[in-house]
């Protein structure tokens, strides 16, 4: 008989994502993804000055602050047909890259590595053998026996105290955990080191954006950074040099640690290249513009339908007509009023809460669709869309990662295997390596442009009274983000944000098509249904972020995740 399992880490206030799966013969036979909290934040923006919108959108989410700020100014600029000075493009690009590198490092190590790494195996590892293994995989200088021993000692101290602290809630000793003690120690040591390198990436955001977590330097039409080579308070030689040094360290960590670890873990769990594919329609927008008008980009965009990589459709610009016209949101299974799918410019956000009903309405997330179809977004979409177009940088790092996995696993790996749970992790590491190279490129572009004597950072926005529409996109760490704005009389008439996790966490639509999380869970084998580690592995591979954080502290203990078996 089928069993129903609910994973609900969620409290009344703090919760966001809930997953329900039906399990039959130890495999998932049906799945529902839902968000348990209403946002409706967009309504706050109506009637406000479009120039201030980014300050508000930056508060949508405490993890993705900068990305919502960026998409917002781009939406207003698109509506006003406003070009951006080169310096502003480069500074924005550097902020976006640094934020993404921080985010990808944190996602792999702090938020998902422990789905694959078993803490309780670490005390059994031999640090000397671990160092030998590590040296065979990477030139990383912090792969010494002493580093591994120190990390092992920390785990031993925690384990022997009987207080697992931050690790108390993992599925340790689960039969789906399969790494050797040495590989567990290796990955865990990098989990500890990762904390330092994600911080360095965030420092770059802080230097350019004046502050983190909320950057201060954006403005519609460009950036507010004063450029002066000699002034210590403006962006000059000293600031640029700081950024270069920080980026170099982060880049080395990405190439010598993150990419290597993902490939090694993937090689040892190679069966997960066959699990978790789900929706094989992929969507990505071009990003990292290289000119003022936004006609050339360092990251390509486009879409792929039904896994047909050869049939990729490229997007020419970040607000390509096909994209602008193709997006709609369906609320058949979401707690909103409305009958037919609506384009975001005429989108509505009127709640109609009914309580969870898997046959009817069950989520606060709308179901975004592209030309009527569900789309998977995120690093995998971006890598596949780029790879399909023969984009050299995407090919370079994808082929490199595939080669590494083949060497360690001793199996033949093809790009088609990326349609999977592990494929999402591999693609995120590939994307990080691409962004690492682009970080250095855009730093050089900025430094060279300033050296030419161009200090321009801002073009003045000009509003007309008439009604105009715009879309601002960003290929964010979790995928395609789009902010849709309608402006009239210098005020916001309508505003909708279609965020990456809305695409991926979407509920079913009117045609009954599953969203990407839901589809990816179907057929997943579960070794112990009451400890659904395998479900978490696949959901985590998307890097979910429900972007509606309300962080009240709940002292009653309701923060404890519930895994309910019905």
């Amino acid at each position, binding site marked *: 008989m089928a069993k129903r399992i609910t994973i609900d880490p969620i409290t009344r206030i703090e919760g966001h994502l809930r997953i329900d799966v039906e399990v039959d013969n130890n495999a998932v036979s049906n799945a529902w993804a839902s968000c348990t909290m209403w946002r409706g934040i967009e*309504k706050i923006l109506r009637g406000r000055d479009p120039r201030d919108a980014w300050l508000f959108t930056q508060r949508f989410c405490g993890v993705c602050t900068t990305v919502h700020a960026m998409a917002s100014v781009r939406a207003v600029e698109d509506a006003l047909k406003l070009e951006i000075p080169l310096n502003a493009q480069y500074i924005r690009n550097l902020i976006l890259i640094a934020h993404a590198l921080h985010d990808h490092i944190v996602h792999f190590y702090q938020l998902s590595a422990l789905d694959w790494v078993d803490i309780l195996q670490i005390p059994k590892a031999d640090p000397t053998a671990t160092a030998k293994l590590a040296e065979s995989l990477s030139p990383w200088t912090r792969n010494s026996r002493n580093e591994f021993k120190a990390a092992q000692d920390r785990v031993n101290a925690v384990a022997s105290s009987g207080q697992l602290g931050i690790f108390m809630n993992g599925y340790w000793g689960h039969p789906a955990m399969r790494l050797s003690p040495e590989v567990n120690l290796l990955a865990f040591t990098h989990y500890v080191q990762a904390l330092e390198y994600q911080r360095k990436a965030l420092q770059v955001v802080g230097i350019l954006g004046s502050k983190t977590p909320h950057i201060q330097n954006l403005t519609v039409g460009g950036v507010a950074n004063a450029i002066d080579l000699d002034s210590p308070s403006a962006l000059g030689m000293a600031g640029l040099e700081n950024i270069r040094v920080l980026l170099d360290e982060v880049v080395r960590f990405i190439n010598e640690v993150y990419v290597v670890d993902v490939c090694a873990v993937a090689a040892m769990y190679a069966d997960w290249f066959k699990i978790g594919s789900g929706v094989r329609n992929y969507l990505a927008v071009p990003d990292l513009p290289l000119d003022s008008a936004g006609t050339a980009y360092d990251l390509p965009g486009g879409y792929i339908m039904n896994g047909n990589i050869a049939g990729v459709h490229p997007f020419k610009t970040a607000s390509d007509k096909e994209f602008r016209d193709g997006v709609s949101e369906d609320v058949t299974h979401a707690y909103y009023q409305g009958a037919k799918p609506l384009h975001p410019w005429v989108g509505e956000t009127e709640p109609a809460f009914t309580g969870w009903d898997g046959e009817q309405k069950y989520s606060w997330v709308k179901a975004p669709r592209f030309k009527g179809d569900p789309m998977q977004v995120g690093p995998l979409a971006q890598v596949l869309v780029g790879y399909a177009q023969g984009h050299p940088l995407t090919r370079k790092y994808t082929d490199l990662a595939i080669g590494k996995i083949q060497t360690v696993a001793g199996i033949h790996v093809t790009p088609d295997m990326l349609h999977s749970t592990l494929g999402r992790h591999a693609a995120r590491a590939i994307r990080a390596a691409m962004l690492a190279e682009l970080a250095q490129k855009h730093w050089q572009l900025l430094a060279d442009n300033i050296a030419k004597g161009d200090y321009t950072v801002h073009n003045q926005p000009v509003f007309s009274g008439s009604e105009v529409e715009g879309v601002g996109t960003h290929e964010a760490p979790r995928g395609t983000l789009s902010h849709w704005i309608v402006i009239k009389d210098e005020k916001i008439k309508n505003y909708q944000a279609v965020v990456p996790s809305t695409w991926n966490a979407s509920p079913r639509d009117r045609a009954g098509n599953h969203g990407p999380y839901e589809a990816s869970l179907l057929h997943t084998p579960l070794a112990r249904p009451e400890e659904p580690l395998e479900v978490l592995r696949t959901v985590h591979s998307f*890097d979910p972020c429900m972007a509606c954080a*309300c*962080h009240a*502290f709940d002292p009653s203990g309701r*923060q404890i995740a519930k895994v309910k078996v019905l």
Partner: protein
Amino acid sequence: MKKVLIGGIGNVLLGDDGVGPYVVRLLAARYEFDDGVEVADLGTPALDLIDQISAKDAVILIDSIDTEAAAGALVLYRKSDIVRHCPAVRMDPHSPALVDTLLGADFFGVAPTDVLLVGIQAESYEAGCSLSQPVKASVDQAIAEVLRELDHLGVEYRRQEHPAEVDTWWIPEEQAESALAT
């Protein structure tokens, strides 16, 4: 000199959840602090909160709370009160929240010695940029608790001779607080 973080936590777009950022911005406008004190609107942080609290001697956080208490009630928590609860299974990057942050800081050896959470019971988390009346009425008391903790830590502060404008940019102008209030 003691290194102290006074951090406001919460989402300024979700009603009373914005009380943490609101309180720290009032504090910054009304008072001057020792050089070692950092006053910050932290928004809704995830794991980066570890970076914010690491290498501090003391951390004072102001956040809305969700308890059975009456709206506007103040409840003070020490670290042991907060970490009594085991961390959640992580579904998304927000899950680490406060419990995980403090336990993580312990594990990485960067935990502050003193932790105080000044909790203010919320009335409403509906989308919107204003505080409810009961929560607003408790703001000065929350500020007093922060200052009392600074006294306890032996950290100096004084009233600004010329109070700065309060930078609560998200609040509609007619509802904005004056820094001159008590």
